[in-house]
């Protein structure tokens, strides 16, 4: 028996969300008195994989087949299933990402495992039952869920775990092959188009986000958002109407119909706080709202607020961050 952790890598680096997943998985392994092995997908380097020891991983399996650089559902599923078989894994932990959830749902059928996505806390053993807490109703609630059966798959929501850092610990990296054939790559992408990221920080992975709404008046004013984001090391985001009129690209829009983020800090500038917007951001740890209307609904969901004009407030905030650094 062991715990298998799926680690996503990009450009040689382990993704931040996967450091969280590794930390989650190694703590589950500790609870169960077993070992935590990882299987890496995407483009990785052995040096970076070895540092997963800091997150409590003892061994990393890695197949450096270049066809696995980009996500291929069929091939990834087969690779992870083979790793689970080899390690007799009873618990598989992955990120609640587009990759993690897609692979997790296929694996649950193939391995006859129970599956919980969007998990926000370490499991509890409750009277012999294995119980996880997960987000439901678009961030408006949580549910405790029993995972039954011998095998379990857990997809961990981003930013719900503080990554461990056991300085100096290293994991051994082992070559691993699942004997993948061409048919496993039938659904391989023909082309991958990555977006330009402001300051190089990927919105879904970011732990700080500066977001603008219609109150920003137009795309020409986005430098105010970008300057603050840059000073903070944050990603930028926007409300839906802003991306609908192409002030900002579609992939930046957060909310019920856009992406869901759960950063430590979400700063909303000139956004009213409609319920559909809140659905994408309400699990952020700290919410700051800047709006000139003291009645804006967003203030009800905020931890800190400034009633004021974004054009006046934002430069002051950027200046204050620069002074602090």
């Amino acid at each position: 028996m062991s715990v298998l952790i799926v680690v996503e890598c990009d450009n040689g680096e382990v993704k931040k969300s996967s450091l969280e997943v590794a930390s989650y998985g190694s703590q589950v392994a500790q609870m169960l008195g077993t070992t935590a092995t990882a299987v890496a997908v995407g483009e990785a380097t052995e040096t970076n994989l070895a540092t997963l020891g800091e997150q409590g991983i003892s061994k990393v399996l890695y197949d450096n087949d270049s066809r696995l650089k980009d996500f291929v559902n069929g091939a990834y599923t087969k690779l992870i299933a083979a790793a689970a078989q080899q390690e007799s894994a009873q618990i598989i932990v992955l990120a609640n990402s587009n990759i993690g959830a897609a692979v997790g749902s296929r694996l649950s059928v193939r391995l006859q495992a129970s599956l919980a996505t969007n998990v926000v806390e370490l499991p509890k053993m409750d009277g012999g039952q294995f119980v996880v807490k997960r987000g439901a109703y678009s961030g408006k609630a949580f549910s405790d869920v029993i995972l039954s059966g011998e095998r379990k798959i857990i997809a961990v929501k981003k930013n719900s775990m503080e990554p461990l850092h056991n300085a100096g610990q290293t994991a051994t990296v082992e070559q691993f092959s699942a004997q993948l054939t061409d048919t496993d790559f039938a659904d391989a992408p023909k082309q991958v188009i990555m977006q330009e990221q402001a300051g190089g920080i990927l919105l879904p992975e970011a732990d700080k986000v500066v977001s603008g709404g219609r109150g920003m008046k137009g795309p020409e004013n986005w430098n105010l958002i970008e300057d603050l984001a840059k000073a903070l090391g944050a990603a930028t985001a926007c409300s839906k109407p802003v991306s609908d009129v192409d002030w900002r690209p579609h992939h930046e829009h957060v909310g019920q119909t856009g992406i869901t983020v759960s950063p430590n800090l979400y700063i909303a500038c000139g956004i009213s706080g409609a319920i559909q917007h809140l659905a994408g951001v309400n699990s952020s740890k700290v919410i700051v709202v800047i709006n000139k209307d003291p009645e804006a609904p967003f203030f009800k969901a905020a931890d800190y607020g400034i009633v004021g004009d974004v054009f006046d407030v934002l430069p002051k905030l950027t200046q204050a961050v620069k002074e602090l650094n």
Partner: protein
Amino acid sequence: MKFLVCISNVPDTTTKIAFTPDNKELNKAGVQFVINPWDEYALTRAIELKEKLGGNVTVLNVGEADTEPNIRKALAIGADDAIRVNAKPTDAFFVAQQIAAAVKEGGYDIILMGKESIDYNGFQVHGMVGELLGIPTVAPAIKLDVEGNTATLEREIEGGKEIVEVATPFVVSCQEPMCEPRIPNMRGIMTARTKPLKVVEPTGEAARTQVTEFALPPKKQGVKLIPAESAGDLIKLLRNEAKVI
């Protein structure tokens, strides 16, 4: 081309969520149930493709009789016929088995779903159905075009998108901005009444997961307001008090 659109029945997005006193179920009092918003993209895109390529659009819901008004709504929007699997949708795996069984029975070419159901936020059913049937799942897709037996899709990934080509049959989960969801018109509402709605009994294994309790997030403390004149103080609070920067 035979299209199957899977719709779930969820509380309207503006619902204030509350639970029964034992926290075991949603308190449905005053809650309006709607077609899961993502599934409206799936439905509209299926109808658009049918109009272009010819064929038939079937909607399927796993649910008890109280979901029928929303199934009729899907028929009014333009689906041709409907299937209701008469069971409480206990978990994703249970639902996926029902859909897979319907696909085997009906021989559908393209199975369209939403990105996720906004009640359970599972993002699971489409992957499970693909695996149960041994066919690809593309999730979540922001674009879907079909030519002959091949579809070209754009799949959203963290920080970008992929162009994917798959042959039918396949499963796709749809997300905005794939299309502009349609609303029913008068003629649609009239004809929906007489379109076939078949009720079938569930098959397969029982659910593998079980919700024991719901909880609401802890109440926010209330907002701390900082005067605009001294906006810079916010940054100090974020460092020293909230400790997030």
